């Protein structure tokens, strides 16, 4: 029983990380219709920046805050410079541009930070916390859970109750109409990018504290795509739920099938959803025809 509980509890913890990453991707997809393949490299950027600052002597929290802010700004810059001209160009162009950007930024990071692994100290000193039933979970994962809940809550409020949120929702369905109603697409999309990039940096930093930071940290984002589909690509709470589902499935299959089957199990889950319910658990139900 402890085995099962452990798998579930830690699955939820890992799922919180998947969820945080997926929320960043879902935010952009929901607002701009773009599937951001550069999310992973933005995660890596945040993690490397924070790690470099901590090595330079700053405290974890200061370093994290600065790294998140700067990465957010980078996200905004990316939108203004490269993404905006692509407004009407469809999925292929959007995905490939973000892939190309990812390569460029990867090369720059590699030159600037060099090879080699970096470390980030875990933010909370007590490294694990015991939860019910004898199951234990790392405090960083708990923190991550807290952060993602906060993020989802804040974004839900944003989309429902603020002008920005309403304009973003409108622009997602019909950009021209939204402009007609006074939405400045350049501004609102840039803000969406800033927030998404900041979320990515946060995820990257938390991920970095769990293990070691390398340039390949961003590959984690690929696995979060499953969470995105399971939850519903344009639903932000869905991204979180999707992340939790993927995390639990992964850990359960690790415990009961064997650790080598973890990734394949999540891919199988992805396929099941794609075949049976592509819009995911909470998606809006209209398959975007692009």
């Amino acid at each position, binding site marked *: 029983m402890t085995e099962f509980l452990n798998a579930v509890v830690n699955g939820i913890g890992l799922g919180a990380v998947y969820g945080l990453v997926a929320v960043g991707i879902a935010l952009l997809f929901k607002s701009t219709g773009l599937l951001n393949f550069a999310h992973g490299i933005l995660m890596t950027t945040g993690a490397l920046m924070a790690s470099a600052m901590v090595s330079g002597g700053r405290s974890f929290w200061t370093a994290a805050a600065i790294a998140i802010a700067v990465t957010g700004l980078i996200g905004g810059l990316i939108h203004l410079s490269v993404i905006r001209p692509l407004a009407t160009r469809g999925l*292929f162009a959007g995905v490939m541009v973000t892939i*190309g950007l990812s390569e460029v930024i*990867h090369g720059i990071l590699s030159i600037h930070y060099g090879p080699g692994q970096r470390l980030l100290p875990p933010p909370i000193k007590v490294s694990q916390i015991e939860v019910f039933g004898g199951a234990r979970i790392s405090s960083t994962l708990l923190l991550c859970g807290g952060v993602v809940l906060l993020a989802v809550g804040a974004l839900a409020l944003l989309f429902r109750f603020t002008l920005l949120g309403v304009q973003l929702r409108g622009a997602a369905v019909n950009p021209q109409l939204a402009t007609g109603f006074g939405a400045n697409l350049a501004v609102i999309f840039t803000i969406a990018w800033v927030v998404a990039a900041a979320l990515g940096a946060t995820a990257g930093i938390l991920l970095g504290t769990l293990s070691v930071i390398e340039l390949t940290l961003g590959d984690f984002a690929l696995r979060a795509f499953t969470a995105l589909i399971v939850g519903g690509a344009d639903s932000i709470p869905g991204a979180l739920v999707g992340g939790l589902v993927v995390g639990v499935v992964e850990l359960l299959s690790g415990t009961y099938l064997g650790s080598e089957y973890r990734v394949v199990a999540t*891919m199988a889950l992805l396929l099941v959803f794609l*075949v049976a319910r592509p819009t995911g658990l909470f998606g809006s139900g209209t398959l975007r025809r692009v």
Partner: protein
Amino acid sequence: MTTLTATITDSAVPRTRRRSVRLTLLGSGAALTLALPYLLDSYWLFLASTLGVNFIAAAALNVLQGNAGQFSLGNAAFLAVGSYSGAFLWVQQGFPLPVVFVGVAIAGALAGLIVGLPALRLHGIYLLMSSLAAHFIVTFVASKYQVANFGVAGVPYKAPGLGPLSQDRSKDVYYLIVVVAAVVALLLWNLLRSAFGRALVGVRDRDVAAAACGIAVGRTKLVVWSITSSIVAVAGLLQAMSLGTASIEFYTLGLAISFVAMTLIGGNGSLLGSFVGAIFVTGTPEVISRIAKASGASPFGDSIWSHPFELQRIAYGAAIVLFILLEPDGLVGLGRKLVRLVRRMQRPRREAT
């Protein structure tokens, strides 16, 4: 040179003259391609073979993506299907080469059929995700197969003996690749100009309208997935022969993306674009490392040319971004614009006479 281009491009020049000039060029191009192994050293020959394989796989992907509109990140998976089914048929079972080629093509077609099934119902990001899932699942299965039968280092591919025509390994492989490339190019060229090719475009642009016109959309999609994946699988077999080994670390998502980049940079939907794009993506790292060496920068110094490998990555990414932003029709599109420019420059001269 102006007269030459004029002769080829200028529609005012009589057709027969144009045709004979084109045929001469084609003929000399073919002769050069055949003579290449005797002109180049092993390094450049290897590069040429790699280019050939890349062209084959890119051309197939281009038909799938550019002409049929199916965005796919599955190329690495299909290459793996090719090299590992080749491992089974050739390295393990020892079937004769023609049989192996046919077998690999069939395996590729089957794989394409399976991966294409979701394409019947999915569009956009969902189709993309399904090709992503296919990538991971295929590579997982392939790695299990490799470890169970061959171990860490990968599948050892010996030289493909061509019987009485055999020379040495790299030449043999090169000629095999050239033959297959020519066959594939002809096949795809004819395919695109046929009714099937038009059906593809209909499926890509307006599948509902295409169905109304009597095109069996579902069947068309499955057929194009099967054909293109079959071709990519054969390319995977050739690549393994060229490298001398097939190992699972090679088949990464980045590899699949590089083929998408080739079609994009060369020109989506264009056979020539696949060729030019393959040259660009295969050749740019080469050019950059040559410049870096020529600059004399030490690999451990501080100048920008001390990091040629990162620069290659940046150039690759920048090329993708720039082409999407500025020239979505790729190098072929650029070329067409240049031709139009040349024509416009010629016209006043003719009018003056």
